[in-house]
C-alpha cells in the first residue's frame, strides 16, 4: 500500500493566499483540497445599512485585483433595483473602463503569474533576464491597462471615478486623444502576445465541464448580456440564483457551486469558447493563425485566451475612444432615484462571472447583499481538474507533480482575496 502527500502550504503566484493538500493512496486521490485561508471579511454583512452610492467604493475593496469588476457588477445591480437605464454613450464608456481592467489583469496574470511556469522560472523577474523584451512588452501592456483605468478612476487599484449610473467625471478630450494614440501604438504588441502565448509548451490535457459566461447579441461580452452555459442554458442574470447552488460535499472543506446540479467552469477560456463568433475580425484572424483549435477544453489554453482578450480589449478601446472624440459626453451619469426594491447585476471579471444582488429599503440603504465571485464558482471544477491531473501524472516525482498542480491552479487565476462568501464553509481546525 502506498501513500503520497503533496502539501503546498502557500500557493505562490496566485492572488490572495491559498493552500493545496493532496493525499494519494494506492493510485487513487483520497483527498484533494484547495484550501482558502483568507480570513472572513464580512463584506456582505457590513454593506447592510450603507447608502446605495457608497457601494462601489466598498465592494471595490473586496478585491484589489479586479476592483472595476466589483464596481460595475454592483452598479448594475443598483441600477436594476432602481430602474435606472444607462445611455448608450455611458454604456460605451463603461465598456472602455472595463477594457482597462481586462488588459491590466490579464497582462499581469500572463507575465507575472503564469509565464514563468512555461519557462521553468520561479518568477517574472527571473524570466525577464532570459526574455527581457517579452516581459517588458507584457509590463507595458499591463501599464497601458492601468492607465486606462486611471483615466476614469485616478488609480488602478480601488479607482474612484465610477458611480452607479455612470461616472463622476467625463474624461477630457485631450486625455482621450492621448489615450487613443497609445492604444493604437499597442496593437502590434497585443498581436505578438497572442502568437507568443500560443507557442507555450502546453501539457496536452482535456477538461470537460459546462462553460459558463455572459452572452451578448452582438458584442464580445463584458458587462452586458445573458448568462449562457455550453449546455444550451441561457438565462437572464436575475434568474441566476434559480439555477445556481452552493453546497458542501463530504471530505472537502471547500464549498462547491453547481449550475443546474453540475460543476461548471467560468473565466477567459469558457468565455472565449462561448463567444468565438463575437470576436473583432482582427482578433479572429490572429486566433486562427495560432493553429490552436477553439473551442478548447485544455485549461492551459487560458493563457492564450487571456492574450486574445487583451487584443479584443485593445480593439474595443480604440473603437470607443475614437467615437468619444467625435462626440464627447457632457454628463457622464444618469440620475439615480432610490426606491425600495431588489436588483441583480453580473459582469465578466477578468477571471469570470461576478454576480451581485442587493435589496434596498425606500431610502436606498442596503437591506441585504449577495455577492458571488468567480473563484467560488470555479471551485468544484477546479478541484475536479486537479484530481484528474494527479491521476494523469502519477509518474511524476513529488516536486514535479506539485509544480504541475500549481500551474494547473494558476490557469483559473483564482482570486482568493475576493472569496467573499466562498468562505461560507468550514475551516477545519483539526488539520
Amino acid at each position, binding site marked *: 500500500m502506498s501513500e503520497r502527500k503533496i502539501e503546498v502550504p502557500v500557493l505562490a503566484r496566485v492572488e490572495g493566499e491559498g493552500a493545496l493538500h493532496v493525499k494519494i493512496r494506492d493510485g487513487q486521490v483520497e483527498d484533494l483540497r484547495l484550501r482558502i485561508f483568507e480570513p472572513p471579511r464580512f463584506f456582505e454583512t457590513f454593506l447592510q445599512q450603507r447608502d446605495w452610492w457608497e457601494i462601489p467604493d466598498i465592494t471595490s475593496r473586496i478585491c484589489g485585483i479586479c476592483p472595476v469588476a466589483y464596481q460595475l457588477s454592483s452598479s448594475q445591480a443598483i441600477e436594476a433595483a432602481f430602474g435606472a437605464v444607462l445611455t448608450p454613450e455611458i454604456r460605451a464608456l463603461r465598456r472602455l473602463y472595463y477594457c482597462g481592467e481586462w488588459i491590466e489583469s490579464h497582462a499581469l496574470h500572463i507575465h507575472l503569474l503564469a509565464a514563468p511556469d512555461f519557462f521553468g522560472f*520561479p518568477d517574472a523577474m527571473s524570466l525577464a533576464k532570459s526574455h527581457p523584451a517579452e516581459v517588458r512588452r507584457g509590463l507595458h501592456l499591463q501599464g497601458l491597462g492601468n492607465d486606462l483605468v486611471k483615466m476614469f478612476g485616478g488609480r488602478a487599484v480601488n479607482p474612484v471615478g465610477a458611480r452607479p449610473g455612470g461616472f463622476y467625471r467625463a474624461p477630457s478630450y485631450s486625455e482621450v486623444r492621448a489615450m487613443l494614440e497609445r492604444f493604437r501604438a499597442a496593437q502590434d504588441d497585443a498581436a505578438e502576445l497572442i502568437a507568443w502565448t500560443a507557442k507555450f509548451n502546453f501539457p496536452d490535457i482535456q477538461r470537460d465541464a459546462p462553460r459558463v459566461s455572459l452572452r451578448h447579441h452582438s458584442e464580445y461580452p463584458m458587462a452586458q448580456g445573458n448568462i449562457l452555459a455550453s449546455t444550451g442554458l441561457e438565462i437572464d442574470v436575475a434568474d441566476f440564483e434559480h439555477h445556481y447552488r452552493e453546497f458542501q460535499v463530504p471530505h472537502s472543506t471547500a464549498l462547491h457551486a453547481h449550475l443546474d446540479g453540475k460543476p461548471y467552469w467560468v473565466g477567459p477560456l469558457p468565455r472565449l469558447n462561448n463567444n468565438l463568433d463575437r470576436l473583432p475580425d482582427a482578433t479572429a484572424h490572429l486566433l486562427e493563425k495560432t493553429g490552436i483549435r477553439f473551442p478548447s477544453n485544455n485549461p492551459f489554453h487560458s493563457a492564450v485566451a487571456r492574450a486574445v482578450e487583451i487584443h479584443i480589449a485593445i480593439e474595443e478601446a480604440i473603437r470607443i475612444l475614437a467615437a468619444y472624440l467625435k462626440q464627447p459626453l457632457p454628463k457622464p451619469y444618469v440620475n439615480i432615484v432610490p426606491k425600495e426594491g431588489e436588483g441583480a447585476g453580473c459582469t465578466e471579471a477578468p477571471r469570470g462571472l461576478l454576480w451581485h444582488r442587493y435589496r434596498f429599503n425606500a431610502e436606498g440603504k442596503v437591506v441585504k447583499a449577495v455577492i458571488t465571485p468567480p473563484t467560488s464558482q470555479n471551485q468544484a471544477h477546479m478541484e475536479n481538474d486537479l484530481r484528474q491531473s494527479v491521476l494523469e501524472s502519477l509518474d511524476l516525482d513529488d516536486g514535479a507533480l506539485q509544480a504541475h498542480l500549481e500551474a494547473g491552479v494558476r490557469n483559473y487565476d483564482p482570486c482568493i482575496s475576493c472569496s467573499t462568501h466562498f468562505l461560507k464553509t468550514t475551516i477545519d481546525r483539526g488539520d
Partner: protein
Amino acid sequence: MEKPKISVHKFSSCDGCQVQILSLEEELLQLADRVDIAFFAEATSRMNPGPYDVSFVEGSVSTPHEIERIQHVRDISKVVVSIGACGQSGGLQALRNWGDLTYYLNDFYTEPEHIDALPQSTAFHDHIDVDWEVPGCPPDQGQLKYVINSLLSGAKPNLPSEAVCLQCKRDGNVCVLVSQEQPCMGPITRTGCGALCPHQERDCYGCFGPQGGGNIDALGRRFNGAGLTPTDVVSRLRLIYSWAEPFREASRRWEQGAQGAPLPPQPHKHGGMRS
C-alpha cells in the same frame, strides 16, 4: 555587498497594496535588481523563510493565527513596514469592530462555530512595533517607491501628514465642497493619493486616514450645514479608516450628539463689512 533581503506578507486584505507593487512595471524589474526578493508569495515561487532586512506587511490582524504570524514576521525582520489602510487601522473590515462579531458570523456562515475570527480587525501596531507605516487604500505608488528608496539609502522616510486639500489645489482642482456642497473629507484626510477624488469631481471619502492636524468636528459641522445629519457624519467617518483613533473618537462624539452650530454661519453679520 549582499543585496538586502526583502519580503512581502499578506494578512486580512484585498491584495491591492501588493498589486500596487506588482504594477510598478519597469520599476519592478529595477527593484528586483537592487534587492533580493526573498519572500513575496504573489510574485515568486521562491520562498526564503528569512530572516529579512525589510518586510512589508499588508492587511489587518483579524484571526488568532494572524497574531502569531505578525509576531513571527517581526521576529525575523530588521525593519517592518506596514503598507495600507488595513495594516494601519484595521481597514474597511474594521467596520465589524462597531458591531458584534456573533451577529456577523451568524449572518454569514452556516456553521459559524468553525470560523476563527477575532472580535476586532486591528492594525499591526496594536500587536507589534512597526517601523514605518505607508497610508492609503491602496497606498500611492509614488509614496511606496519613496519609502523603498529611502530605506535602501538608509534614510528615514518622512511622509507628509497634511490634508488632501493641498494637493487638490496644487493640481488645480475645483473644490467640490465649496462649488457643489459634496461632503468632501479632503480637509481631514491625509495627503498621498494625489487628490484623486476631487480630480474626478467627487468628494474624498477618506481612504488615506486622518490628516495630522485636522479639525474633524468643524468639518462635521460643515457637513451638517450642507444638510447631512449627525448620523450621516458618523457614517462618513466610519468607512475605510473607521478604527483610526481620530475618526473613531470623532465618530463616537457625533454619535452622542450635536457638535455645535452648523458651518458656515449664514448670514454674515460681523466686522469687516460695510453695512
